[in-house]
């Protein structure tokens, strides 16, 4: 999952980027509304965290331009002005949630997870296919009730597939959503990740939950999807 962070205060932006990375997200960041709009239009973004009080193009303007261009990407606004009038204004401009500064990162993360899940069409934070359950809140995976230890990248690959269950996800798409722009896009690395992931969630190779579509990418086995 790739998160765009638009925040003009550099220290806060850097800390947000590193906190999101630690939580296993890929990030893009911008310090102005103009840059943010460019990144959101050019790169596959799954969610945007936008500060309202940006110099130049304001956060609200950025959101309304995005919406006007037809972008449905979920947006959380960060705001220092947290009166209900400001909240209502932000949410009616097209934001999906707001966080008042100063915020706890854990809460921002929880809201980001919830928004991502909702935008994929899942109501509960727990998503299950076959006997594999992922908890998007806790970022944990279990097989038949027993916890499965995954690395952050492995988890992100699985989560992305779980959140897009009816879709064939190309290797390029998966790479773009999981890694930074400047990541060395060697598809072999991704194949190695997927291979390890398969072994961890399906040691007996009996489930075949993640299917490889030759020349197209990966998908979840349709047999497990209602």
């Amino acid at each position, binding site marked *: 999952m790739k998160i765009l962070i638009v925040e003009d*205060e550099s*220290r*806060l932006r850097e800390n947000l980027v590193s906190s999101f990375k630690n939580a296993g997200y890929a990030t893009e960041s911008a310090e102005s509304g103009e840059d943010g709009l460019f990144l959101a239009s050019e790169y596959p973004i799954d969610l945007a965290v936008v500060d309202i009080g940006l110099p130049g193009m304001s956060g609200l303007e950025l959101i309304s331009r995005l919406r006007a261009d037809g972008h449905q990407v979920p947006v959380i606004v960060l705001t220092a*002005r947290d009166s*209900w*009038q400001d909240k*209502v204004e932000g949410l009616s401009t097209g934001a999906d949630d707001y966080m008042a500064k100063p915020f706890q990162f854990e809460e921002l993360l929880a809201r980001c997870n919830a928004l991502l899940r909702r935008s994929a069409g899942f109501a509960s934070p727990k998503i299950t296919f076959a006997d594999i359950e992922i908890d998007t809140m806790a970022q944990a995976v279990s097989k038949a009730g027993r916890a499965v230890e995954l690395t952050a990248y492995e988890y992100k690959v699985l989560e992305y597939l779980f959140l897009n269950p009816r879709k064939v996800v190309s290797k390029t798409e998966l790479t773009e959503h999981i890694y930074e722009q400047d990541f060395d896009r060697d598809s072999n690395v991704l194949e190695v990740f997927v291979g390890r992931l398969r072994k961890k969630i399906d040691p007996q190779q009996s489930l075949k939950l993640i299917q490889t579509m030759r020349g197209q990418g990966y998908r979840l086995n349709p047999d497990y999807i209602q």
Partner: protein
Amino acid sequence: MKTWSLKRRIALISMLVLLLAFSAIYFITKTAYTNASLSRVQESLQSQIYALMAVAEDRDAQLTLPDMLRNDRLNHLNSGLVAYVLDIDGDLIWRSRSSDNFSFLPDITLKYSLNKVTQSELDGRMMFWIGDRIIWEHENEMEGEYLFLIGEKQSILGASVRQFKREVAISLSITAIVLLLVLVMALNISLNPLKHAQRQIELVERGEIDKVDGKFPDELKPLTSSINQLLDSEKRQKARYRDSLGNLAHSLKTPLAVLRSELQARSQSEFKQQIEKQIGRIDDIVRYQLNRSVVTAGKASRTIVLSMEIAKIVDALKKVHADKKLKITTQVDPGASFPGGEGDLLELVGNLADNACKWAKTEVLISARKDEAELVLSISDDGPGVPPEKRELILDRGKRLDQQAEGQGLGLSIVMDIVKLYRGEMTIDKSELGGSLFRLRIPY
């Protein structure tokens, strides 16, 4: 007197002036009429005394007058006109037939004159007298002094004076009443611009308009334009104040957010907890004071459509609490309005409804209705509710949160602060949905 209206003062003074002027007119007219009547009486009596003297004859050295005279009033009893001729000793020489019912003779010691009416009583009746002493030369060349007297009963004149007085009083009263009515009308017309200005100021106060509008006479123009200038500068100052507070809050909150994000990377320690706690406190204080400063309390810039504002909040809450898939219902009485600014209303409903959404299991109900002179806003949920013993505590803590901000329930203390500024009240109850019911009563 201090609190009397201008209209009342002017009306009272005018009434006093009118009363005084008309009393004077009445008194002067009455006196003039009485004097004129008296001189008419004197003239008429004078001419009659001359006529009387003209018919006097000397017969056998005796002054005689005919029994019947040409003036019929002297021949008839009760005509009110009497005539006497007396000698120097007061003995009767002659009397007119009309005087037969008088038992006494006129008092000869009084000074009688032809040119001035003498008033005296005769036989219990007040009379006007004209008299003249003449020296009569008899045929036998003897001389005798005689007093010719002619009198008229005062009651005859009195009746006509009374009649005149009544007529004058009636016409003066009618004139006074008409004048008063005209005066009141004139007062109303001249005070109308003042009244208009007063209404405009009231509308400004209620927030229905933002400046005193209309055409005013030259005397009022300086006043209305100063009021408008004052309103304008107050508005600009308030906006400047609000902006600078907003900017202050913004510039404080970003560093606080940076501080928090810095702490994020650090491992748990007492130091981290302490810093976290203090950041939370600073945040709460800034939020509380910022929200306080923007409360407009009764100074709406325009009339607010309650249902629209509440719908905005509901849309926002549905996004923020999307995970809970809550059923948020609104019941807004179309006659209900909010007696203040949009920001205050959003703050009241937003904070309470947000709390309700946090606690609710499936349902939140927001209702607004007009109850006599109050707006009643109720927000209820189907959550666990507030136990009766804790309600007082929550309201109390809300009151004191500005001093000891602890993070939780800041929204509630903002709500209570706004409610206080609007002279309203908040109560906590059990809702029909099973959870809590927060009810605000805000007087218009």
